[in-house]
């Protein structure tokens, strides 16, 4: 029956102190195990971006690290937050209160991530975010133990907006998902476009889950803008790209800029449809020997090409374990402080840095999706157009709304 978690909180507390008392003097690892919880969307909209792939990436990281940190075993557990903020925050609470989880990883969907951020902040546990997009997570909702690892809306908007204007795409029209996320993406991007000397000719607010984009694409087409910015996500993006190809938008000379597109989306669209799409990512598997080597292992495990979110989960877990090794402790704030000290270097990040607002800054890349004829082998999808240096890619600390920054 459901009475499987019959634990008295006070008994557990006693057990914990007991463990601490008997723990080795140099390594302060609570209850003698480092437990990492991968909380992701396993079944719904974002399951292809994070999902099971994120769990496998975390397991790969633990294996590569040798299975032990500071002499103690590492354990991975996982759960599905069903894209529901209340489910996510309940699991996070239960993991921390009952299962003694030390760090929570991934958590796509901003609403769930914001809720989990509240819980981890309150409990002082580490939160390694790879999946969520909202730049608020290191802005007004920042946390001393929250680490936003892979990307955020600001970086995507700035990367794509800024770099495209430099390449001559100086007039824009936006298809904007009509809710806070879409508007934020549009505003961020149009600010960059204008700052770079471009012009925004117009925009149209599209309701969520609207399957038919033809009407909006027609409006975008007749605006004669050089770039059509897709300020939407998930199924909406996929459908708008697919129908843009049907209506001959790209062949007609306009460019499509996806502001939140992942390689899994390109994979599911196919190159024929997605060709010419411009997008920003933190990682592409075919960038260099290191990324290729890692991706090969990932594909062998999952049969799917890794997204930047899954790659980020691997990198974040490795860095987290490195910091525990160095700090000889798994206490939240201590570990995150150590994570800030150590520069981030792995297969996808060179000289990355964790800032005090929780933002990891690293180079981002602008890619264009290849035409079917240019693709030589499986998953040969992108050609790199530009590198966006770390200092330009992310919101500068001087503009940050994070209270932790102002104090310091």
């Amino acid at each position, binding site marked *: *029956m*459901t*009475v*499987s*978690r*019959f*634990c*008295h909180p006070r008994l557990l507390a006693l057990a914990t102190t007991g463990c601490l008392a008997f723990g080795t003097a140099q390594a302060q690892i609570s209850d003698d195990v480092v437990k990492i919880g991968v909380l992701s969307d*396993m*079944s*719904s909209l974002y*399951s292809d971006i994070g*999902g*099971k792939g994120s769990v496998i990436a975390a397991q790969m990281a633990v294996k590569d690290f040798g299975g032990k940190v500071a002499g103690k075993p590492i354990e991975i*557990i*996982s*759960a*599905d*937050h*069903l*894209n*529901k*903020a*209340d*489910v996510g*925050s*309940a*699991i996070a*609470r*239960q993991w921390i*209160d*009952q299962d003694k989880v030390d760090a929570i990883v991934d958590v796509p*969907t*901003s*609403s769930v991530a*914001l*809720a989990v951020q*509240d819980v981890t902040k309150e409990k002082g546990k580490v939160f390694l975010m790879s999946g969520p997009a*909202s730049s*608020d997570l290191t802005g007004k*909702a920042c946390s001393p133990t929250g680490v936003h690892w892979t990307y955020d809306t600001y970086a995507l908007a700035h990367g794509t907006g800024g770099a495209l204007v430099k390449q001559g795409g100086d007039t824009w029209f936006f298809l904007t998902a*009509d*809710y*806070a*996320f879409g508007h934020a993406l549009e505003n961020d991007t149009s600010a960059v476009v204008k700052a770079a000397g471009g012009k925004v000719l117009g925009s149209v607010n599209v*309701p*969520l889950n609207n399957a038919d984009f033809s009407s909006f694409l027609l409006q975008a087409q007749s605006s004669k803008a050089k770039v059509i910015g897709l300020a939407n996500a998930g199924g909406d993006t996929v459908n708008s790209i697919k129908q843009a190809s049907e209506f001959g938008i790209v062949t007609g000379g306009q460019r499509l800029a996806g502001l939140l597109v992942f390689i899994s989306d390109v994979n599911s669209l196919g190159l024929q449809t997605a060709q010419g799409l411009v997008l920003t990512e933190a990682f592409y598997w075919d960038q260099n020997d290191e990324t290729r080597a890692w991706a090969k292992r990932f594909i062998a495990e999952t049969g799917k090409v890794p997204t930047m979110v899954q790659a980020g989960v691997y990198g974040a877990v490795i860095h987290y374990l490195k910091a525990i090794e160095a700090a000889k402790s798994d206490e939240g704030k201590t570990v995150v402080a150590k994570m800030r000290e150590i520069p981030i270097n792995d297969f996808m990040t060179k000289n990355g840095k964790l800032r005090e607002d929780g933002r990891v800054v690293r180079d981002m890349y602008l890619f264009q999706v290849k035409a079917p004829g240019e693709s030589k082998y499986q998953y040969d999808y992108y050609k790199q157009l530009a590198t966006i240096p770390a200092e330009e890619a992310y919101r500068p600390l001087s503009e940050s709304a994070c209270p932790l920054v102002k104090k310091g």
Partner: protein
Amino acid sequence: MDSVSAAIVARSENRLLSGNRLAIVLVALALAAPFGLYPVFLMKALCFALFACAFNLLIGYVGLLSFGHAAFFGAAGYVAAHSAKVWGLPPELAILLGTAASALLGLVFGALAIRRQGIYFAMVTLALSQMLFFYALQAPFTHGEDGIQAVPRGTLLGVVDLNEPLAMYYFVLAIFLLGFFIIYRAIHSPFGQVMKAIRENEPRAISLGYKTDQYKLVAFVLSAALAGLAGGTKSIVFQLASLTDVTWQMSGEVVLMTLLGGLGTVLGPVVGAFIVIAMENYLAQYGSWVTIIQGVIFVLCVLTFRRGVVGEIQHLLRRRNGPPGLDGPAST
């Protein structure tokens, strides 16, 4: 878990069913529960139990299947969360305001929906709640996909700090019992009798001189308000209000809880809510299998188990102990 123990108690000592002793045992169990079970889980289950009871008031006693009850649950959550976070209202007022908002919404939806019956009623409520979903998605105060986050739990009546898990739990329990009592009274009042009459034979109720539409509307508003009470409380417990609670999937979930526990039984929705929430909690690592299992339960309930858990137990007890001929052969 108290609901399951309730079932066991009911099976072994069925005479308790008739008296108040069952109620006393259940309340005692509920009071002791947070020392054995995880309080956050219990609070969530209680909120959903109240939600399911409110829903059951319509389907079980008036025979109206609403497929849009998430609208009331979620809307109250948004109003309560907004008033607690932005306007700084204390939790009890925030929840009340949420409840009032849902009652008002229920009045509007109800006035439209009761113009049709049966299946149409279900589709109309579904469509109306979908409309509210889109409103919640686009309105600025709901913060779209992010939802209203970091809602303060505050201090109850300025005295009790609700950040204390036990205090929060007993507050939720009190709200649940209050809501449950209101529903119980409504069912067992003359008003409740008229509702049942409408369910059994509406034309006859009309011919007896009852203005059935008014009765239905009152029942609808009451149900909406109580669903709102549950939703508002939930947003204070979880300190957030999000789109999840206004989606049609949530409406489906509350139907499932009630169906599984037993349509038209007093305790059924409570049992159903505990089972469904426990499933969601403990099966979380199995991902989309949760949806599939929910679907299977739906199908099984409808095909073989229409009385639901509590309904079947009551039926068994009555057959074993009741005077012969009272219940007769199972007629469904």
